[in-house]
């Protein structure tokens, strides 16, 4: 059974979701929690069995799907993906467990379980087409969540979300087909297996084109400036759980894909595009940070802050060294936890007041001290205070990119200032001051269900901020493998010099000792 743990992780929730149709409406919550708990336990088991010292893929599974065309069902995890999978199962669990009073709760839970399937699938897939399948499929549950439970503009938002990302990923699909074709030309074998593709060294001009094609798909998903405008709508309209899943997991697909595809497949192109992408990332960091400051709706603040943080992740990824990439992956987890928690928190107040306008609030710290505390902790985590989860990632990302460019890192670093400005300003508006609005005077503080969702997030965000090693170490091992692969594959001298050669480094160090 454990040989197929990844398949089980993927399809168990889907199966459970199908069976869920038969469950009575009253019992569906318990059912959902039970399924999500099992799924989460399975993912923990995955972690438990995961060999942290190995850098390669583990728990590989292979099954022919369309063998004539080289499409196979290949799964596997390494240090990069295993934690995102756990994060996704975790969020599904607390998402379902803390689900508030909503209409059609049964459909919501079933949809979430389907979403869980697609998320695990994306991160576990090692075949481009299988990856693409889950990648696209993940849009559907999200579309439904936004469209059916969202705010007044939900239909516009959901369609925009779907079409925008769909368009991007179709371009990416063309890129994948080209990649497979080039592989076929080089080796005479059709394959979409990523690990096979890793071995293909492409000439630089092809790399540039393919990188661009993949980039469109990934960048929209991330979302990178200027492709980000679907995100505020999606977040603004989505129900709490939708925003949480979107921010915590779905956005990570884009950045994860950069690490999984763009970097190892196209090292020269990565170097070539590094600076333009860094500029985009900096625009994301600063510009969206400023836009976040101008928001009046607290959820939009968090939404734009997500974009801003994703910029840091991108920057770290394109540092193309171990520090930066590890940091960016860690920041994916960190941002997942923090942004997820922030959206939860915004949802808490929305449930009570049915508004997200900061002008409606003020002085909440007096009325809801626990809420204010948790929000404060999460806000500080979002700002990237040391000993919180985000700091580790941000620090490493910036540190990594500093190797590539001083000035750009300095510019990007202003993100920590901009981030503090919008977050603190929002917190001040909502929580500080006198309680002026009559409706806020008797708001109940966090209840048990909400605490159940939030306390673990607080614990994680501090635990991993203080002691990131158990997570960072496996990530580091896998990233080192990728960086070394990139160095070995790089053709242009510039790429060779930009991407560190770990083996030589180690040798020279040993020699020096």
């Amino acid at each position, binding site marked *: 059974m454990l040989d197929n743990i990844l398949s089980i992780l993927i399809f168990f929730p889907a199966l459970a979701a199908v069976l869920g149709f038969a469950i009575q409406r009253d019992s569906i919550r318990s059912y959902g929690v039970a399924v999500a708990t099992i799924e989460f336990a399975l993912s923990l088991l995955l972690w438990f069995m995961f060999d942290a010292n190995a850098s390669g893929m583990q728990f590989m599974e292979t099954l022919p*799907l369309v063998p004539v065309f080289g499409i196979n069902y290949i799964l596997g995890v390494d240090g990069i993906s295993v934690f995102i999978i756990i994060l996704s199962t975790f969020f599904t669990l607390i998402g379902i467990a803390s689900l508030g009073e909503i209409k059609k709760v049964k459909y919501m839970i079933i949809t979430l379980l389907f979403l869980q399937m697609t998320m695990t699938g994306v991160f576990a897939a090692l075949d481009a*087409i299988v990856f693409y399948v889950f990648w696209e*499929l993940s849009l559907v549950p999200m579309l439904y969540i936004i469209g059916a439970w969202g705010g007044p503009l939900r*239909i516009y938002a959901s369609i925009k979300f779907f*079409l925008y990302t*769909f368009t991007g990923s*179709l371009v990416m*699909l063309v890129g994948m087909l080209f990649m497979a074709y080039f592989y076929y030309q080089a080796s005479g074998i059709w394959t979409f297996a990523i690990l096979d593709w890793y071995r293909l060294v492409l000439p630089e001009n092809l790399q540039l084109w393919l990188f661009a094609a993949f980039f469109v798909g990934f960048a929209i998903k991330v979302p990178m400036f200027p492709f980000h405008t679907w995100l505020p709508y999606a977040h603004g309209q989505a129900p709490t759980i939708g925003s949480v899943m979107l921010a915590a997991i779905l956005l990570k697909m884009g950045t994860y894909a950069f690490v999984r595809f763009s970097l190892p497949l196209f090292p020269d192109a990565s170097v070539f595009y590094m600076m333009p992408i860094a500029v985009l990332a900096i625009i994301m960091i600063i510009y969206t940070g400023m836009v976040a400051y101008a928001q009046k709706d607290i959820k939009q603040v968090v939404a734009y802050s997500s974009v801003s943080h994703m910029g840091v992740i991108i920057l770290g990824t394109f540092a193309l060294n171990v520090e930066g990439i590890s940091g960016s992956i860690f920041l994916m987890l960190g941002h997942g936890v923090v942004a997820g928690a922030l959206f939860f928190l915004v949802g808490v107040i929305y449930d009570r007041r049915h508004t997200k306008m900061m002008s409606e609030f003020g002085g909440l710290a007096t009325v809801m001290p626990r809420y204010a505390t948790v929000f404060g902790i999460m806000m500080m985590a979002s700002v990237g205070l040391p000993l919180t989860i985000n700091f580790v990632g941000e620090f490493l990302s910036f540190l990594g990119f500093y190797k590539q460019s001083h000035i750009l890192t300095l510019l990007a670093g202003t993100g920590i200032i901009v981030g503090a400005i919008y977050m603190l300003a929002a917190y001040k508006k909502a929580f500080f001051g006198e309680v002026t609005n009559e409706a806020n005077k008797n708001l109940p503080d966090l209840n048990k269900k909400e605490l159940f969702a939030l306390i673990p997030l607080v614990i994680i965000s501090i635990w991993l901020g203080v002691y990131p090693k158990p997570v960072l170490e496996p990530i580091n091992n896998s990233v080192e493998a990728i960086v070394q692969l990139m160095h070995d594959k790089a053709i242009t001298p510039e790429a060779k010099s930009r991407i560190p050669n770990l083996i030589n480094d180690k040798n020279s160090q040993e020699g020096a000792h």
Partner: protein
Amino acid sequence: MLESVNVSLESLNLITLLPMLIPVVGALLILITDLFKSGQDKSLYVMLSVIFLVVDFGALLESADIFAKNGTVLGVFNVMLIDGLAILSQFIIVGASIVFIPLSLTSKRFHEFSYPEFFALFLFMIAGFQFMVATDNLILIFVGLETASLALYTLIAMHNRDKSFEAAVKYFTMGALSAAFFSLGSMVFYALTGSVEINQIATVLAGNGYADIAYVLIAVTFMLGSLGFKLSLVPFHTWAPDVYEGSSASMAGYMSIVPKIAGFIVAMRIFEFLIHSGVVWLEVILYLFVVVTMTAANMWALVQTDVKRMLAYSSISHAGFVMAAILIGTTQSNSALFLYWVLFAFTNLGSFAMLWISRQKNIPWYQTSDHSYNKFAGMIKTSPVAAIIMGLFMLSLAGVPPFALFWGKLYMISSAVNAGYTLLALIMALNSAIAGYYYLKLIVYMFMKEPVQGAEEQVFTNNSSLPLRSIIGFAAVGTVFAFILVNPLVEFITSFVYNSGY
């Protein structure tokens, strides 16, 4: 004096005629049955048709077997041509017919099904299509085409509403013009080569090195006009939306599959040798057709208010998409055409069948047409299973993986990529994205809107019966589990296409 001709029976290869004869016999049998005892229930005729079609399918398997052993077979004075294309397309034609004809078994009564002639004509039409694809003789293509078309016009009209007559007349008139184009095109080919057999034409043209390029272009132009009409390429598509809207949903779904595959086979036979011999003009023109058809039809589909009409435009767009296979003209692209069409058949069968079971006899106040979007509003509340199934079909049409049509798109775009048509591949991809919008629109209506106040609750089971539900279930299963089918299909199709020299 003329010498008498001695023909041995073996040399005729009459087996090549067998698959076409079966539906003809079936049709005659139905007519005769009615003659002896009229007023029998439609189920008898449906089952008779299905039986004959199944036998036909069996005969096709036999032909496929022969093809696999001996390669391409000529028969009956070399008029019949049983190659891979013929067999594959007949599989699609007959297979689709087998699943479409039971859609007549609605629980409500519809005019056309009380006529045994309906079923007879249906079978004649199938025979016509089979003749059309199983030959490379322009005369037989023409006659087969007309047989099928005339039957089809009648079948549409028999739905017996104002709109269906209007549709039939429009279709008929344009069809007549198209027939004229076809004959003119054939005439020029004949003038060029002294032959009306495509192989022969190709040989002669290649022999003289396309000396009369102007004539060739005229022939191609008129052939394009005629086949473009059949395949609903823009600007020859104008009949399609009206005809789809005017005919019953089951017939519309049928039309989106079967006549087109026949048309594609003819187009493939005529155009591919031309493209391969370097008629650049044709390549450019086909490129234009593909792009314009895909894009324009998508844009029009965006603005539709009726689902069936939207699906009509979407079918046009899909046809444009598949037309790319002929433009590309590699073995892979031709295989992709068949793969795409098989998967498309599953999905379209499902979606049109869904429309068909929700068909009301009278249009309620809140609908502007048979299947206007707001009829489906809030369907998830009133009939969740139907909504989910319909959603599946829409996602499949949009090309969302892993549903059926995604694999078709994947293979098709891949063939474009492999043949170096990068831009085309991108345009195809982007068009899929545009198309996403209108399929999504239906999903939005079904899942995200509230039902219209006072709407009938039972509209989605209005017309359903066990056979219809089974067919929808079959289509749904095929759509969802297509990924299992893809590999055997690709292998099978590719070997047939490759062995036919395409």
